[in-house]
């Protein structure tokens, strides 16, 4: 169905793709994997018509094509579901689904009633219960994902590309998605599936292709490869231990942070959590369970409607980020580009950002001191960049994440909260971040890790707290931590409230 031959694409100073080959057959699910910066994103954009290749050929449905805009590719039957949705927050679900293909009635006027009905039917086919009249801005992230995916079903699609579709959904919703994809496969649709989650790839893909540094490494049938081989292809080296050894010493008695009866604006109800020095606690649960909200409530980023927080025995009456930071709590946010990094500044400025006092003397910033600190951290965390003055916008996801972690780690904190610390980070950098986290824990810092990746939770956590629909549904420790036990706690109780 699709065949890329000898495709190359470069941007100023960076060669994103070097003469890659890639093909997808009708009726197959072809997984595309590789580290960040390997060229997957660029390839997708070329297939979608958003970029034009510098060299090489693109063949679709047997014919050579030269698309200049996304509209052309779309018209040809290609649909892309991007990781970051293309949804319009102020339009309704129905309008979003049918944007560009509105149902028309008399005189060519748009028939809103029919649009709504057809949207409802589509959503039902996908097995989701979303009101087509709701504004997209009112939906949860998981529901938005479903809307995004249902857009693909509107058209007679020949090639469907999914970019990290399960980054924000899991469990039941992911299974529904896979079922849908199988159904599409049976209809002869060609599917390209990009994901960092190797378990899923083994679950649904027929073939897998690995990219590395803009080059094609290997394409193989899924039955013929093992997980570790794939990882080593991606990284270029053999990785036996992704996760560092867990805590050796027995749990310390020192409770550094204790939150009780926390409620956050309808998203979290009466949740309590205890963090101990030197311990990595994972906060697990389905997307939408309220984990980020609970963590943000503790940090002061979201207002809490009830509950109390004690840091090192000291009771806090009000929480704001500034106070939290002063008391030694750091927060590595889920979305580093929109909530974590000052994207227009350099590494040094970002590292000092949570603790400006340390680089300020007499009201002025001491650039020398700042750069010196940055160099130290670059060294400690092996951040790949050209120096303290490197703009963070030019760095890869993994290195950006390291900058953020470095920033918080040096505030002399007692608690570090990390929300999806390895999202959008390639395998190589992931391992380093895990080691960093364990290293910080060994120094006595209490770590709270929010994660949707079960292997990550099982591999890293000393203790797991599971949330379900805003409540704490259980805690697990030691040998009790397995993917099954976590999942069962995360999905156990029936919904108590229609949200």
């Amino acid at each position, binding site marked *: 169905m699709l065949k890329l031959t000898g495709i190359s694409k470069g941007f100023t100073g960076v060669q994103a793709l070097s003469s890659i080959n890639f093909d997808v057959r009708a009726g197959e699910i072809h997984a595309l994997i590789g580290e960040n910066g390997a060229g997957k994103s660029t390839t997708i954009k070329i297939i979608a018509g958003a970029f034009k290749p510098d060299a090489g050929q693109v063949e679709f449905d047997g014919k050579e094509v030269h698309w200049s*805009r996304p509209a052309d590719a779309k018209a040809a039957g290609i649909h892309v579901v991007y990781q970051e949705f*293309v949804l319009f*927050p102020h339009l309704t679900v129905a309008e979003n689904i049918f944007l*560009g293909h509105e149902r028309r009635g008399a005189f060519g006027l748009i028939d809103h009633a029919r649009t709504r009905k057809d949207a409802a039917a589509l959503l039902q086919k996908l097995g989701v219960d979303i009101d087509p009249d709701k504004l997209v801005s*009112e939906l949860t992230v998981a529901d938005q994902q479903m809307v995004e995916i249902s857009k693909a079903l509107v058209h007679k699609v020949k090639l469907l590309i999914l970019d990290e579709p399960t980054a924000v959904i899991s469990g039941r919703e992911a299974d529904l998605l896979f079922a849908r994809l199988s159904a599409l496969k049976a209809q002869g649709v060609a599917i390209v599936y990009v994901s960092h989650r190797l378990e899923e790839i083994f679950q649904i893909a027929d073939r897998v292709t690995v990219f590395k540094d803009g080059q094609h490494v290997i394409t193989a049938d899924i039955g013929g490869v093992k997980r570790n081989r794939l990882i080593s292809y991606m990284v270029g080296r053999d990785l036996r231990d992704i996760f560092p050894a867990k805590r050796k010493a027995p749990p310390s008695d020192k409770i550094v942070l204790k939150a009780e009866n926390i409620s956050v604006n309808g998203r979290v109800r009466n949740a309590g959590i205890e963090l101990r020095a030197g311990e990595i606690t994972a906060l697990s649960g389905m997307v939408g369970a309220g984990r980020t909200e609970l963590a943000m409530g503790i940090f002061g*980023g979201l207002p809490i409607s009830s509950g109390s927080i004690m840091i090192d025995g000291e009771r806090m009456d009000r929480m704001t980020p500034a106070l939290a930071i002063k008391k030694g709590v750091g927060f590595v946010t889920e979305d580093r580009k929109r909530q974590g990094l000052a994207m227009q500044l350099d590494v040094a400025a970002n590292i000092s950002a949570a603790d400006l006092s340390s680089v300020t003397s007499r009201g002025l910033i001491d650039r020398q001191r700042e750069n010196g600190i940055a160099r130290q951290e670059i060294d400690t965390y092996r951040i790949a960049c050209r120096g303290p003055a490197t703009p963070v916008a030019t760095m890869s996801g993994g290195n950006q994440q390291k900058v953020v972690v470095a920033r918080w780690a040096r505030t002399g904190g007692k608690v570090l909260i990390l929300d999806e610390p390895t999202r959008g980070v390639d395998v190589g950098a992931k391992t380093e971040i895990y080691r960093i986290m364990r290293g910080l824990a060994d120094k006595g810092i209490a770590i709270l890790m929010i994660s949707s990746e079960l292997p990550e939770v099982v591999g890293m956590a000393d203790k797991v707290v599971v949330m379900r629909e805003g409540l704490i549904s259980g805690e697990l420790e030691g040998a009790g931590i397995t993917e099954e036990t976590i999942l069962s706690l995360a999905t156990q109780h029936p919904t108590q409230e229609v949200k």
Partner: protein
Amino acid sequence: MSTLVSAGMARSIRKNQGVIIVFALLVALLVFGAVISDRFRTTNNVLNILEQSTGLALVSLGQTLTILTGGIDLSVGSTISLLSTLTSGLINGDASMIAPVIVGILLLGLVIGLINGLLIIWLKVHPLIVTLGTGTVLQGLVLLYSLGPAGKVPKGFTFLAYGKFLGIPLGAIFVVVIFALVGLFITYFRLGRYIYAVGDDDAGARLMGLPRAKVILTVYGFCGFCCALTAIYLTARFGVGQPYTGLNYTLTSITPVVVGGTLLSGGKGGVLGTLLGVYLISLLNNVLNFMDISTHYQLIAQGLIVIAAVSIYVEKRKRI
């Protein structure tokens, strides 16, 4: 079932928040005016208000669309000045020139708008800056044409502004009709819906392959056309056009749009809100006149109304 209905109602209220608020304010003001003065309640006064609001209404209509796309047109004032001066200058008392000049001016307005649109698309510069630039150039051009009032219009021409049909000023009727047409367009036509999409998420619209260029050209072209309508109307009203006719209209064309609930960032709002906003402002000026408050305080009041209105439309700011 009842929860669904009330949820639907809640959503309608949220979607049309602006319109409802303006309407409420409008009613409140009407009541207030009726109470404080007898003359206020006369049909004559009401007709007066309708008449006076025509100019502002026409240009605000065009501005509504540009703002809905997330942009803005700061050249409207100069465009109105230019077109109004040209109108009276070219007609120059000759009744036979009326028809061709009107057609020409309407076309010229459209062309100016299209040029704005083209520059915005080609140069990829923010509409605020582009239209600021073109507006400045246009102001210079009109001053080249004439430093003061130009030409004059024959008697018959003023009919456009003062004529009545069944007792209602022509202008007011025209305004309602054209607002309704545009309202229909943005609700029931694809290109109209795309206006909202582009305003909501421009990059997304581009990625989805929506005809962004068509949308921008349509919107700015129409805005230019609206300027032409306004210019013709104002020339008919004052009997002559001059290089500063439109001076105040640039910024005051934005007020009704915003007060009517359209977001300055685009993607949300509509023409009904703008129309109500126009009436609200005209009504406000009228009431203040009856209260014998000088025009200076009217300005203050207008500014305060803007502040009040937009403060209420606070988009629920999610703390993180």
